[in-house]
């Protein structure tokens, strides 16, 4: 068992003919993901990967032809908002947006609309999803995680890989890894992912990786203390970050005294979460 994706997921790749889209689509297929179609407006009728994957002009046509139930976006930021709405209107129930740099006002509209339509969005500005041994939708390196019972949810990219790798070195497998992304407004938050892991019979414990900025870790702490029975181990990046400076991610900024790592750590600890001092210390806290 897993959450969001498994070996039966039929994946569409929006922006499949671009450099990133093509590269990561091939990585996904190598991993075993069923990539059933690609979409690039203006390139409909083409095929990629030696005739294995058809390219369509529109998501609607791709869906009609292949029955995809998940889409992953490698679309430039200025077109990403539109591409997400196109996927939602075509009826894709799960959208994973890898694209970084989507304007926040676009994201607020898209998030509201998708929510109204009942469409699940992961990201944007995220590494996507990985259910080890079954499917990966996004850019998480597949070989750094083994199948298992630890759920991972994170706002970060490479820091997530670091944690997956540490778990692997320690011999702990992962049920699903969810990269929710580093933008201030995203589709799926910690709380949503924690709820899904709580409901997933195969997940026995959860690792949650947060960072400075916003208050989603605090809300997650609230959720954990009231609604979670499974143990949660955490890590918060940015204890050394200065206030008022954006630390790479659009959402990673301490503003007006809020979003501090120390506050997030305190909130999580008071909810019973064991918070690691550094990423490599996470696996042993799961014991």
């Amino acid at each position, binding site marked *: 068992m897993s959450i969001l994706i498994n070996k039966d997921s039929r994946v569409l790749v929006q922006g499949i003919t671009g450099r990133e889209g093509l590269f990561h689509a091939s990585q996904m297929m190598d991993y075993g993901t069923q990539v059933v179609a690609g979409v690039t407006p203006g390139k409909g009728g083409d095929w990629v990967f030696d005739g294995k994957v058809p390219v369509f002009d529109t998501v609607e046509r791709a869906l009609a032809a292949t029955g995809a139930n998940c889409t992953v976006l490698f679309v430039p930021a200025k077109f990403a908002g539109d591409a997400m709405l196109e996927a939602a209107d075509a009826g894709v129930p799960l959208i994973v947006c890898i694209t970084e740099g989507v304007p926040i006002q676009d994201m607020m509209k898209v998030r509201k609309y998708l929510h109204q339509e009942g469409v699940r969005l992961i990201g944007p500005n995220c590494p996507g999803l990985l259910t080890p041994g079954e499917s990966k939708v996004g850019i998480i390196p597949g070989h750094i995680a083994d199948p298992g019972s630890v759920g991972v949810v994170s706002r970060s*990219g490479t820091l997530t890989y670091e944690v997956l790798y540490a778990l692997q070195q320690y011999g702990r497998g992962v049920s699903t890894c969810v990269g929710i992304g580093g933008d201030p407004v995203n589709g799926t938050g910690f709380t949503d992912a924690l709820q899904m892991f709580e409901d997933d019979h195969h997940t026995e414990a959860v690792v949650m990786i947060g960072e400075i900025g916003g208050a989603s870790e605090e809300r997650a702490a609230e959720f954990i203390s009231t609604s979670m029975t499974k143990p949660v181990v955490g890590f918060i990046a940015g204890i050394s970050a200065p206030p008022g400076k954006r*630390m790479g991610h659009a959402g990673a900024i301490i503003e007006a005294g809020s979003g501090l*790592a120390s506050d997030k750590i305190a909130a999580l600890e008071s909810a019973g979460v064991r918070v690691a001092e550094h990423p490599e210390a996470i696996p042993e806290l799961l014991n």
Partner: protein
Amino acid sequence: MKLHEYQSKQLFAQHGVPIPRGEVAETPTQARMIAEEFGGPVAVKSQVLVGGRGKAGGIRLAKSPKEAEKHAKAILKLEIKGLPVRKVLVDEAAEIETEIYLGVTNDRTAGSPVMIASVEGGVEIEEVARTHPDKIARAWVDPLIGLRDYQARNLAAAMELPRQHWAEFSRIAHGLFNTYLNSDATLAEINPLVITKQDSLLALDGKIVLDDNALYRHPDLEKLRDLDEEDPSEREARGNGLSYVKLDGNIGCMVNGAGLAMATMDVIMGLGGEPANFLDIGGGADAEKVAAAIQIILADPEVSSMMFNIFGGITRCDEVARGILIALEEVPREVYLVTRLVGTNEELGRQMLADAKMDTASSLVEAAKMVIEASKIGVAK
């Protein structure tokens, strides 16, 4: 990207928000001439992109053109929170009856814009939120619908604004909201919005912060960027597609990924070291980007040692190592360096660096300990 007060107010005015007559001066003489033209008392206001200008003596009232010149002269010599004052705004002075706050920003939690109003205007809204949370009224705006009339009215009512001002307040609220929308702002605020002794509403001071990710659709606003107000290293980094923030320590850091870059700094600090910077080189660590990153890190004279932390993942570590070796051929000065590489072909990558007599590490903590040790003894390699 932050806009200056005068730029913000011009944008407000374009959206129908009343602002005082004002002009920008770069010399005391210009300030005097503007005051002469206006013919009454003026406010001389430093234009720097930080808060606390008033407390620093950067905002002064002048009763005559001569006094405006004198104030401008003093203000143009100031440095406010490290930023030299290069421009002053000379505004016609208003006779203030009441000061209120009106702003719109993005509520991350709600995923929607929120309009905030308070009768406690003229001070920072965060301060009001701390001291008088009951004096703040909020209206969450549906991003698909926009600000509704009743929401503006609700805010006016919540502030107990005299009823004769409601229509004008509502017009200003819509003007402010449209400014925020049309400029892709993340914050647009009028503080204070004043009711004058003549009973009219006027946006006396304002601030706009733009979404950097949306600047591509606002080339006119991008041109307003004040390059003087930015750290030159941070600007250079941005030009190279790198994300760099200068800190006060002596250990230079180069990492791929923002979260991992923060975690790397955290580990260094946790073990007693002092990071000199945050630097995210992004996805592929090709030679060109690595070279640019090294130049930027070493331009900081405090840096006495460096740590590279590259989690390759899909990226091949031998390619990263090759990039580092090429980039290091042109370092401006020699400092200690330890590289931690993880990912595809990591043994090969580490071997390549070891062959070039460079220190490598396999774990984050191990690498951090090595670089901290070097920073303490100041080893040059």
